[in-house]
């Protein structure tokens, strides 16, 4: 463990920016491979809602101008890249003329709150349970109960959500049925709002936790089995160290490293949210935003959300790369 070499840091930062640039370019190109014209879609949406559309040529031309798709591709691309640098992804075509950045800023806090909380809970619970499944000093009850509890992991989150909603919200009425917070509080930094958010977030978070902790538990179990037979564990046992000390300092600490990498990758992906959970609980996060954008072929929003996902994933991996030596002293940064 020690200072991060400058060359290594520069190398990683250049890689980070290249990754983001290439990914951003790909997500700009993909929608344009589609034969569908977003202005035609917007016009079609008008027709679907109310029949004939007068002045359709004029509307179409105006929509194309507003969406910026009447310009040459190279101009569109350069504008997109310039905008992406300052998180300006243009205007939503489905919620025109709302800026995409506004939609993302409105949705992101809810997903971050719900999903990161769920991820952290599942990460800790799953890894702890995975370790306990292998540890030979775990009580028998724990060894039996954990695999039984993992039955829940085979349930899709939408079903667990509906089940929890029916039991705890509809029948017992302990928790609210939908929404991210009560309709009777104003969003803001105050206890009433925070309390309402926690109250509303409990069931969605639980519905995610109970179906995802198995992923971490099974992964950890496999890693623990490998670590269990390592020489340093045998040596620690021979030295007469306390079993619980060996579990935490020797086994879990070594087995957890691949799980941390997986955690970093999940941080990026979880920005996309649990679409169906967000939908049934009317939780207006990034998953629902992306889901609606795909349904409406709202390309600017799809690009904006994808960009944020890429950014989060790339930055998470970048940070984990830098943090590894601090977690495992055997790992050293090497200059390029």
């Amino acid at each position, binding site marked *: 463990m020690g200072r991060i070499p400058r060359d290594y840091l520069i190398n990683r930062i250049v890689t980070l920016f290249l990754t983001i640039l290439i990914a951003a370019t790909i997500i700009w190109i993909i929608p344009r491979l589609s034969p*569908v*014209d977003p202005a*035609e*879609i*917007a016009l*079609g*949406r008008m*027709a679907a*809602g109310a*029949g*004939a*559309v*007068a*002045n*359709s*040529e*004029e*509307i179409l031309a*105006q*929509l194309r101008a507003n969406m910026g798709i009447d310009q040459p591709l190279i101009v569109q691309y350069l504008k997109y890249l310039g905008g992406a640098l*300052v*998180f300006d992804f243009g205007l*939503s075509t*489905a*919620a*025109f*003329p709302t*800026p995409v*950045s*506004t939609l993302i*800023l409105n*949705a992101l806090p809810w997903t971050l709150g719900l999903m990161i909380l769920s991820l952290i809970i599942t990460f800790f619970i799953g890894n702890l349970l995975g370790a306990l499944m292998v540890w030979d000093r775990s009580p028998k009850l724990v060894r039996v109960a954990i695999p039984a509890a993992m039955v829940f992991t085979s349930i899709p989150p939408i079903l667990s959500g509906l089940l929890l*909603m*029916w039991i705890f919200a*509809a029948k017992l*009425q302990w928790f609210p*049925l*939908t*929404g*991210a917070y009560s*309709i009777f*509080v*104003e*969003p*803001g*930094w*105050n206890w*009433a*709002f925070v309390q309402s958010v926690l109250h509303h977030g409990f069931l969605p978070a639980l519905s995610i936790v109970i179906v995802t902790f198995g992923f971490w538990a099974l992964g950890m179990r496999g890693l623990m089995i490998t670590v269990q037979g390592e020489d340093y564990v045998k040596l620690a046992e021979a030295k007469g160290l306390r079993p619980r000390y060996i579990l935490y300092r020797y086994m879990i600490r070594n087995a957890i490293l691949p799980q941390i990498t997986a955690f970093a990758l999940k941080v990026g992906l979880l920005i996309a949210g649990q679409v169906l959970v967000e*939908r*049934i*609980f*009317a939780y*207006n996060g990034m998953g*629902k*935003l992306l889901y*609606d954008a795909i*349904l*409406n*072929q709202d390309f600017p929003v799809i690009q904006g959300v994808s960009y944020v996902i890429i950014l989060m994933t790339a930055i998470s991996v970048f940070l984990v790369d830098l943090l590894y030596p601090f977690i495992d002293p055997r790992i050293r940064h090497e200059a390029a």
Partner: protein
Amino acid sequence: MKAPVLRLTASALAFAAFGGMALAQDVARENTVIFDLDRTIQDPENFNWMTPGTKRMHGAHQTMWEPLFILNYGTGDLDPWLATSFTGNADSTQFTINLREGVEWSDGEAFDADDVVFTVNLALTNEEISSREASTLRAQVESVEKLSNTSVAFQLKAPNPRFVVENFGVRIFGSFLIMPEHIWNGENAATFAFNPPIGTGPYTLNSAASNRAIWDRNDDWWGAKTGFMDLPAPERVIFLESGGEESRAQLMAANQLDAAQNVTIGTFEAIQAQNPNVIAWHDGYPYAASDPCARQLEINTTVAPWDNANMRKAVAHIIDRSMIVNVAYEGTTEASQTMFAQYGSMDPFINAIIDAGYGLSPRADVDAGVALIEGEGWVKDGDYYTKDGETLSVNIHVNSASTEYTRTIDVIVEQLQRAGIDARAVPVENGVFWGEVLPFGAYEMSYSWLSCGAVNEPWASMGRYTVTDVVPVGERSPGFNNTARWDGPAAEAYSAIMADIASRPLGDEAIPGLVAEAYQHLDAEMPFIPLVQAAKLLPMNTTYWTGWPTADNYYNHPFFWWNHTHQIIHNLEKVE
């Protein structure tokens, strides 16, 4: 956005400084009516309805912005609201709308002709305003002029007897909404957020967030002061995003919702089993109310063998509408008798068509259908008809966005298959369907509702199939009209009658007869095949509120996301 971080920080500081209070004035549940919102309020801080996007149906045009008139679907009358009457000249190129006296904006300013002239001119002079209503007005109006504080004159570009109902009468969903000149003047109409918004309606905005908008009653509403109407009973109106059918069912069962968006019959029965206070438009089957856009099978009349009218008629005979009703819609709708939505206001025209012998049977006449096919030289060879070595087949494009659509097409495919036509469903994503398939004629047959429009007079639907809108396949049909590319002598004869109907004033006694005369061409050529009425099964909760619109308590239709919802709210009575 130029500096998102700055904005985020500013928002956080603003929340810290001003936000975070519980709503200042709590209103008891029994004084609150909660409507279902089927979408997220994407930008809760923007109330500029003139840009396309959703900035009205979260309660803004149901509680705050009032229309000039409201079309009654039962009688066909235009019920006066902010306006009291209108007159038109003989050739329907000039209209004068008379406004109600004493109308006020919620900030106390008078609502008058200046506001109407100002808002109409906004639409006429700003092409970047691309909402459907603004664009329609731009296409129709040459100029607008204030005659007095309560009188406005419109000069149209071309005769249009339907001008007032089309633009100011809440014909379908919304109407051209008048904005306060004293607030909008000097603003860029394409970008102005209009926040905080005001209106003339009996409710003002309390707050809006992405999942709900709360509107509180303005006890100083002009309508109560002038004697136009009493104050509505609900003290608060909430539009709440429910999160989908499963959630809205739970909310309805738990009395946390008073009116819900469309549900399936299974969900409705489950709700009723838990909450017997929940009702629908009808007491029993079909439960649902009819939406204005009746469903139909569109046919591209340029593609062989469906360019042959007898082949199209054959398909019309083979389709069993009652089976579509029972299987695809589970009994929640009814078979269409004509191309029209079956409202009371349309009865004269529907009856004229049926009396002339052009009404459709709900049952199939497969024998008549196959006789027409065989008459065209097709021979049954195994399961399918063939001719010159070619199998009789058809691809039917269907929007995959709803099971309503795909289930209907599955039933039709099955019926055609049994009759010897190798029919296939081609599910297409929503955007592709409306953006690429329908307008460009890129289909043989498709399931849609392109006759949508007629709710009080026939032209709005029938006028969509004239030869003036025929373009080659691959070019976009103007305004989504005549995507069937129906042309030829019968279409021309039909179009001539349509031109006659188009120029006649609403209510002209000759119109029903002309409709029947024109319909003979549709019946003979079948450029599309009417199927069933569009069903909307809307659960309404009588635990806290009664007076909901139903078939037995008719004052208008129940679509509470439309601009006419002012009528619904005024009719609600608190359960004591």
